[in-house]
């Protein structure tokens, strides 16, 4: 191997001459040419920087056991699987593997388990305050789950959620005081109160759209506040109405009371999660997912009665909110006027926006964050509201859909960046891109394309006026090595779009056509030019191929 890139030999050696081919000269004069090995050396040479190719293993893949692709556990007696699992074969080792397509049940289970064992693992000093906050968290998370059903699933932008809870709490407290109802009756009656208010509030929702309704419900909230605070029956002076029957016995030890409160809030949260699952994930939710905002006409045309579904979801969540209101009354022995205040609405909106509107996990996590800030870090004073406001601002300024939209937002961003990086290192010439190469099963194709590219680059260096002239003089027969290499390449090309000469009339009319490459599909005519002799047609075809080679 010599290091000289271009050899200045003025002759080609004819490889066929040793067999004594007819008219085969040993050496033919030739123009300057480039060593064909050089381009191979250049391609193989180590170039910095090298870019990593392939994809990361984003998903954890667990190995399989036994002969079955995977083991399916099902919720008895349904056919529903516990975890959505997909079986795949490892592309490299061809071992069977399984991917958990939906890991959310695992995270839900772990988080709920952590909440369930919370009273046993909290340090003694903080136990009381944290468990109290935990009970509040349970109630608020349930309210926000119902609210998410209204805003997210039903798409009704209602801000009167806390008004329904508050009215139910006040009315049941009043009934409990005046009629002496036991505590377990309060949520039951609350459900009817919630239904009644739901019907009243749902009426304008049928006519108004979007933010008109939101503003109206904001006003309704204020109406309830003014009505309750100014009425004589609900104790205008004391800042709230208290004295309802409760499930917490005063004779218990304080810690027992707190733990009972905590677990009752936790049970309410579980119930609300089940409600969310069975409304959002079942028929009603699916109907409404077909009818997102501004696409109602399509849903209607598909035969979906989305209005009915919306109102049904609204009423179901109103009943649930009424239930929570009754529970609230039984939990706190009453309710404060605070529940109707604008501040509560802002806090509630903060809870559902921070997590991400329309998602159960978002509502619960947002509630957790706000409750921790609001009820646990009390020593921060008014600063905690400023922190909450700043978190809200951060969410709306930088996040697409709250905390739980971060995953998708990050993936979109990463794919965008990857696309940019890929296009910046893109080399033209038909070679496969690294990402494409790792995903192609036929690895021969990668090398074929690489070799093809190298060869074309080399052949381009050979094209000059001399060989064109040489071909014009003698289209067939033995050529100089440069021309011969070019012709070999052209002859070896794939059948699709390969140029051929068509004889219209022997020795008079010839045309150039291109083969289709597909059996049964006729060749197409590429130009109307008529050549007088077959040699001229050969040369015309040669020129076209050279043009294609130089342009590719």
């Amino acid at each position, binding site marked *: 191997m010599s290091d000289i890139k271009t050899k200045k030999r003025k002759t080609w050696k004819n490889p066929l001459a040793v067999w004594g081919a007819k008219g085969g000269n040993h050496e033919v004069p030739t123009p300057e040419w480039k060593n064909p090995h050089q381009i191979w050396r250049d391609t193989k040479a180590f170039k910095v920087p090298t870019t990593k190719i392939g994809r990361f293993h984003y998903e954890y893949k667990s190995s399989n056991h036994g002969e079955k692709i995977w083991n399916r556990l099902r919720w008895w007696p349904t056919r529903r699987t516990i975890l959505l699992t997909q079986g795949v074969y490892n592309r490299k080792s061809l071992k069977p593997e399984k991917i958990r397509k939906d890991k959310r049940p695992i995270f839900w289970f772990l988080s709920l388990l952590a909440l369930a064992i919370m009273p046993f693992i909290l340090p003694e000093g903080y136990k009381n305050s944290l468990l109290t906050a935990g009970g509040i968290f349970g109630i608020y998370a349930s309210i926000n789950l119902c609210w998410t059903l209204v805003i997210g699933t039903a798409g009704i932008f209602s801000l009167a959620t806390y008004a329904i809870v508050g009215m139910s709490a006040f009315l049941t407290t009043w009934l409990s005081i005046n009629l002496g109802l036991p505590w377990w009756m309060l949520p039951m009656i609350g459900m009817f109160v919630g239904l009644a208010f739901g019907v009243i509030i749902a009426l304008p929702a049928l006519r*108004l759209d979007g933010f008109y309704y939101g503003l109206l419900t904001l*006003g309704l909230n204020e109406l309830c506040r003014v*009505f309750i605070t100014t009425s004589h029956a609900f104790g205008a002076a004391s800042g709230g109405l208290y004295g309802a029957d409760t499930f917490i016995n005063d004779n218990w030890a304080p810690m027992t009371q707190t733990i009972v409160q905590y677990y009752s809030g936790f049970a309410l949260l579980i119930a609300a999660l089940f409600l969310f699952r069975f409304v959002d994930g079942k028929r009603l939710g699916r109907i409404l997912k077909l009818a997102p905002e501004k696409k109602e006409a399509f849903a209607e045309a598909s035969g979906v009665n989305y209005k009915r579904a919306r109102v049904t979801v609204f009423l179901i969540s109103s009943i649930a909110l009424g239930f929570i209101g009754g529970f609230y009354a039984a939990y706190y022995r009453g309710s404060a006027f605070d529940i109707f205040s604008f501040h509560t609405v*802002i806090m509630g909106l903060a809870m559902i926006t921070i997590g991400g509107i329309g998602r159960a996990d978002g509502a619960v996590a947002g509630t957790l964050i706000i409750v921790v800030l609001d009820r646990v870090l009390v020593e921060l004073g008014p600063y905690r509201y400023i922190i909450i406001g700043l978190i809200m601002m951060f969410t*709306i300024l930088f996040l697409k859909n709250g905390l739980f939209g971060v995953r998708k937002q990050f993936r979109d961003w990463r794919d965008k960046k990857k696309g940019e990086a890929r296009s910046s290192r893109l080399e033209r010439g038909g070679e496969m891109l690294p990402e494409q190469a790792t995903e192609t099963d036929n690895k021969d194709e990668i090398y074929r394309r690489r070799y093809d590219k190298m060869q074309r680059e080399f052949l381009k260096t050979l094209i000059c006026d001399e060989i064109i002239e040489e071909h014009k003089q003698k289209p067939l027969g033995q050529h100089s090595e440069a021309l011969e290499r070019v012709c070999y390449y052209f002859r070896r090309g794939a059948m699709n779009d390969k140029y051929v000469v068509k004889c219209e009339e022997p020795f008079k009319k010839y045309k150039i056509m291109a083969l289709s490459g597909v059996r049964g599909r006729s060749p197409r005519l590429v130009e109307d030019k008529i050549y007088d002799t077959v040699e001229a047609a050969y040369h015309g075809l040669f020129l076209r191929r050279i043009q294609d080679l130089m342009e590719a």
Partner: protein
Amino acid sequence: MNDIIFLVINGITVASIYGLIAVAVSITWSALGLLNLSYGFIFSFAGYGAWLAERHIYGEPIFVMFMGIAAGIVGGVMVCLIVFIPVHDKPNFTIRGMIGTLAVSLIGGQILLQNFGPKAKLLPEFFGYGKIKILDVTLTADKIGIICSSILMLTIVVKWMKSSRRGLEIRAMMMNPHAASIVGIGVRKTGIYVMAVTGAMTGLSAALLSQTYYLSPFSGLTPMIKGVSIALMGGLGSVRGAVIAAIILGFNEALTTKFLGGRYVLMTQFALIIIVLIIRPRGIAGILDKAREA
């Protein structure tokens, strides 16, 4: 008869203050598509600005009133810079903007509470203590001043929007924001003008209301909710609709107070609003002119 007229004048006085906020909400919604729920904060901000000016700069009532308007402008522009300009080109802008303005009012309210404390403040009477008697009805200078200054403010704003170049830009944005941005009307610049004008209106209403009632960090909430209700009834995006709705609700307040009692004002008001909205989902302006699509 006399007390009915008295109540009607009372109603109109209150309506003219709330009407200013309603028109501000309406203009912001129709020009920018922003549901600004931070007018409560701008209201308190402007009130405290006027109060500080009275304490530290100069006590002349008219000067204090103008300082209130100026503080309102500052507050409005501040909200525009913090919420509208970063968010206006993001997806789901309406809901993002609304939550952003709520966050601003949460943070701002707490900062006001930190700096000024929960104790209520009072502004001086701007219009003196004079009284006029027309046809057996005594009108205090205070009420006449409130009604006249609000009408003056509204006239100036409407006139400015009708006749000036900036007003033309704002009206173009109201009609079709996309087309307006294509012909070279800057969304951000217009946003600043709109928020400054609406802030000035809120500032005036803050100054006017704080001299009769009082001023506290959260005293802007009720006027804002009333203003929003009026804007809703009038049809978001229509100045005429908001004015008509303010007058109707003012009368309603007066008549309800007279015949049912003050406690039922909000109930009759919301019953009225709901009835109007059920008949006309786009408010009164649904008859008058086309409101912005949500």
